[in-house]
């Protein structure tokens, strides 16, 4: 079966549900104290991993669309991309509000001094640019610059995995797997890059 624009609202509704379910689960876990009496670290990690997982799923979308000739899927990328931004925003909000407890001077100090925070913040800056230029009208006005700008999502993906790898206290297996996954997803695109830009410009 091939998805058409007719199916698009249903696809989008499904992706909204998939993206929101983990947030509902987190709320449930925190409210029932299923994740301990002090879930600060859990919430920060959960939302951070949520952003990364969503980003990788989004990057998986165009190879899948191409392989199975499901071009309609590509029209859900903005929706998914905005959820990446949403999770990343929750991640930072949790860090600032729950861990630093709004101690802004400490935040600025940490940003200046800690490389893994700088790397994460660079990724967030890129995601912000992409989110703010995601409107259709803006996309049309930016012309070919839009695609150029939005290709920086690959840079953001690499920065996020490096940020993850750098932030853990020990246990580098999981962040290492994420780095490999990201590189694999990027490698999928390299040879076919030209064809893709031609087709979906």
């Amino acid at each position, binding site marked *: 079966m091939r998805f058409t624009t007719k199916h698009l609202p249903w696809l989008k509704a499904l992706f909204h549900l998939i993206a929101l*379910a983990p947030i509902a*689960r987190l709320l449930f*876990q925190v409210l029932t104290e*299923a994740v*301990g*009496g002090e879930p600060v670290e*859990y919430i920060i990690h959960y939302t951070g991993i*949520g952003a990364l*997982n969503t980003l990788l799923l989004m990057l998986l979308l165009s190879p899948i669309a191409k392989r199975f000739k499901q071009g309609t899927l590509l029209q859900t990328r903005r929706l998914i991309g905005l959820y990446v931004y949403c999770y990343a925003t929750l991640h930072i909000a949790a860090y600032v*509000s729950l861990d630093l407890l709004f101690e802004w001077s400490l935040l600025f100090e940490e940003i200046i001094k800690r490389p893994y925070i700088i790397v994460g913040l660079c990724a967030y800056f890129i995601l912000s640019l992409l989110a703010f230029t995601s409107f259709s009208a803006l996309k049309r006005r930016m012309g070919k610059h839009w695609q150029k700008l939005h290709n920086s999502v690959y840079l953001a993906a690499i920065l996020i995995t490096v940020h993850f790898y750098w932030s853990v206290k020990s246990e580098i297996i999981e962040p290492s797997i994420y780095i490999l996954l990201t590189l694999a997803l990027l490698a999928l695109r390299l040879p076919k890059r030209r064809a893709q830009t031609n087709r979906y410009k």
Partner: protein
Amino acid sequence: MTNKFTKGIATTPSWQLKDNQVTPQAVFNQRRSIIKALGLGALGAGLSGGAQAGIFDLFGDKKPVMPFTTEPLTFNINPNFSSIEAKTPYKKVISHNNFYEFGTSKQDPVNNAQAFQVQPWQLVIDGLVDKPITLDFDDLYKLIALEERTYRLRCVEAWSMVIPWTGFSLASLLQKAGIKSNATHVAFETLYDPKQMPGQKSRRLGGGINYPYVEGLTIAEAMNELSFMSVGVYGQTLPPQNGAPIRLIVPWKYGFKSIKSIVRITLTDRQPPTSWNQLAPNEYGFYANVNPAVAHPRWSQASERRIGEGGLFSAKRIATKPFNGYGEQVASLYKDLNLTTHF
């Protein structure tokens, strides 16, 4: 709980525990509700889109188990080590733990340690001692009269708690074995039992630490009056996630020095290896004294998030004190040491 007054003093001090903090029934109920919630959490685990364990969560097989049973202890309150600071509630003390033997996330220990067997237990004290001794499980509570001390616990991750521990001084324990004059250091070792401690079986769960977990102190540190062997918390025997049946508490050092579930204490004439130092020597030193002036390479140690009563936003950021506020007792130990290079 048993409260004995210090001879000649018949007041009710401000730091004395409220009944609702310690009654076994409340403790029991709290733990029931945690376990119940864990059961619910396990149902949701299959839905995981981005959980703590992330991509591994899909393979999780968490099963709710009966909570570990703790027993009330008989002890005196030591008024020299009380605290006017608000204590961290029992529920948080037993559900927010670093104990990588049971997993690296904060809730892993309470989730994975409830079936932990503490009986039989053997604690060996050997090395440069006059008479090596082996304590059995019952000896831990009988050999030395128990007292309660309320200490601040400062984690190297920049959060802290205030916790009433039950136990005895490390010095009183070492004196039972008799310390030889050439002993300079004390080495500690956690139980190695991969069948019971999943983190020791799996590198991923255990955070890459080379088990068994080991720690160490200098003799002067070990004999300092603050160094404490804890067999209980909040008047009850220790739950496994807090280091049952016996653990060290060195409150002027980062929490990872306070080694849990100890099976061996060895007096030695050289500085023993310590687990976190072995894993990342540029981040964790042998001394690991709480020091706001020396940042961890990846985060500041100048302040800490104090975990107290109340919800998520009720925690406070407070300034971290040198030696976690115990400078009066321990600063003299380090007067000839550069604490910036010997972090």
